[in-house]
């Protein structure tokens, strides 16, 4: 829950995390997530208004994520947002969660078009082309697992608590790419990703070592895994930048907090004369409402409003670019 002024000034940004609860189950349990949201929803609204020192009279609109995501969780946000908008006669702005992730970058600098986003999270891995403001086109995406999902799975194999990204990233910095895992589709002539082969190679390697009683270095395993993920993401991004020249490349989504990925893209784009790298701020890479507010300002100016029938859309997606390979 956040209060945002003009799409770029954070007056408050309240995040209530359920990680502790889901760690009991080794991942997010949708029914549990939804129940927690009901427990927190009005408290977070109050805290956000209080921290921002504003009242309902000071607000111009209510914006809410209506997809993609877990339907039971989306429903609580959508229901609460519709109710607040109705109670105070405020316009309601429906926001695509992924547009929100991209707009976390707005807190670094204004977005210049055409732009491209490399969006990497637990549920998504995609390249999004933005020819102009409020236009999003997918030009490449994962054909199987999202990068974040792969991190959690290999983390589990190494005995790391969910979510595993941070620990694997740390270990990766202490180890070396000794295993040379496969880089799927890296050289293929398309902009799609695949991480299931990498995941299987990782599992096979650790499984084989277990069987012969050998202990592998978690640092080297992490470094090898991360290097493969980063190589694929970076290669495909270079490929996309060649096809779609843009002014900015935005790195966003939960996995955008990964140091290995940030450093690699910095290096890759250091000498690119036309495209400038904008990394979403570390503390706004994970899910938060400030990023939703940033894009809501754009949606508001484009007259994107919803009425009281707004419903959650768990599989909401950007459209594919018309001229893409798919």
């Amino acid at each position, binding site marked *: 829950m956040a209060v945002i002024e003009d799409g770029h000034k954070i007056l408050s940004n309240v995040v209530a995390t359920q990680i502790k609860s889901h760690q009991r189950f080794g991942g997010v*349990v949708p*029914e*549990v997530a939804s*129940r*927690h949201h*009901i427990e927190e929803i*009005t408290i977070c609204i109050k805290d956000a208004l209080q921290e921002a020192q504003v009242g309902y009279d000071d607000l111009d609109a209510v914006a809410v994520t209506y997809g993609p995501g877990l339907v*039971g969780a989306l429903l*609580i946000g959508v229901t609460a947002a519709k109710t*607040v908008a109705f109670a105070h006669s405020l316009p309601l702005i429906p926001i695509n969660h992924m547009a929100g992730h991209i707009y976390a970058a707005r807190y670094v600098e204004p977005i210049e078009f055409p732009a491209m986003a490399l969006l990497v999270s637990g549920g998504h891995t995609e390249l999004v082309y933005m020819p102009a403001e409020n236009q999003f086109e997918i030009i490449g995406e994962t054909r199987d697992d999202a990068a974040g999902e792969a991190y959690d799975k290999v983390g589990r194999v190494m005995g790391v608590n969910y979510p595993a990204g941070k620990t694997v990233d740390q270990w990766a910095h202490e180890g070396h790419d000794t295993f040379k895992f496969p880089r799927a589709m890296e050289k293929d002539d398309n902009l799609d990703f695949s991480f299931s082969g990498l995941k299987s190679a990782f599992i096979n390697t650790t499984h084989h070592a277990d069987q012969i009683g050998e202990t592998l270095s978690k640092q080297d395993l992490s470094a090898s895994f991360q290097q493969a993920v980063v190589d694929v993401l970076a290669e495909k991004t270079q490929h996309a930048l060649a096809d779609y020249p843009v002014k900015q490349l935005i790195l966003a989504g939960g996995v955008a907090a990964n140091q290995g990925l940030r450093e690699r893209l910095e290096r890759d784009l250091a000498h690119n004369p036309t495209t400038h790298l904008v990394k979403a701020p570390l503390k706004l890479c994970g899910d938060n409402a400030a990023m939703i507010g940033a894009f809501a300002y754009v949606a508001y100016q484009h007259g994107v409003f919803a009425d009281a029938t707004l419903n959650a859309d768990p599989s909401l997606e950007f459209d594919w670019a018309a001229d893409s390979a798919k």
Partner: protein
Amino acid sequence: MKILAIDTSNRPLSVAVLDDSNVLAAITVTVHQKHAEYLLPEIERLLAMAELKPTDLDRVVVAAGPGSYTGIRIAVTTAKTLAATLDIELVAVSSLATLAANVPVEGALVAPLFDARNQNVFAGLYRIKGGVPVSEIADAHTNVTTYLEAINEYGEPVWFLGDASHFTELIDTTISAATPNVSAWMNLPQAATIGLLGRHETPVKDVDQFVPNYLRLTQAEAEWRAKNPEEDTGSYVEKI
């Protein structure tokens, strides 16, 4: 006192607006189960017909469960957000008691139940006293045979409401006393009745802490607690 009453516990959606004991507008819909889409538009429409603004409301009465998880979540989220954001009173009533209130017979024993699948029900037993249902057997998630056997102990006629038609045979063989016929509307929640029931009830003390009455742990949590009986089950949500 202007009251908004809401029930989306199961397939029916029911909304009413009252001014004290006067029912200003009421609607019950059973043709779809799209509560997320239709609840707020119906509230908007009924308030407009009653020529009221949201800020005119003094109290929200909600049927808070048991029922379908999604259904009670939508009703409770709408009710608690409305109460919190407008700083008005919130009253919760049992989704089973609201059905029991449909029986207008003083002294009657009423058994409202919702089918919870696998021979389980969400059910309670009520007696109509002074025109309102008073709990005899507390609402619970229970095996339907266990429930019916407990009711049969009373040896009195029982009005079965809700999803009773799913268990007709079992009711006939288990209950020896009479089971009066009920008309179709009595199986549906009537928000006007909910509003009237909630009119004199004490409001919820802490609206922010208010949650649906699921009457059942999630499967993941039940399994986890069975494995970790010693663990503290306090708050798992933290602000960062």
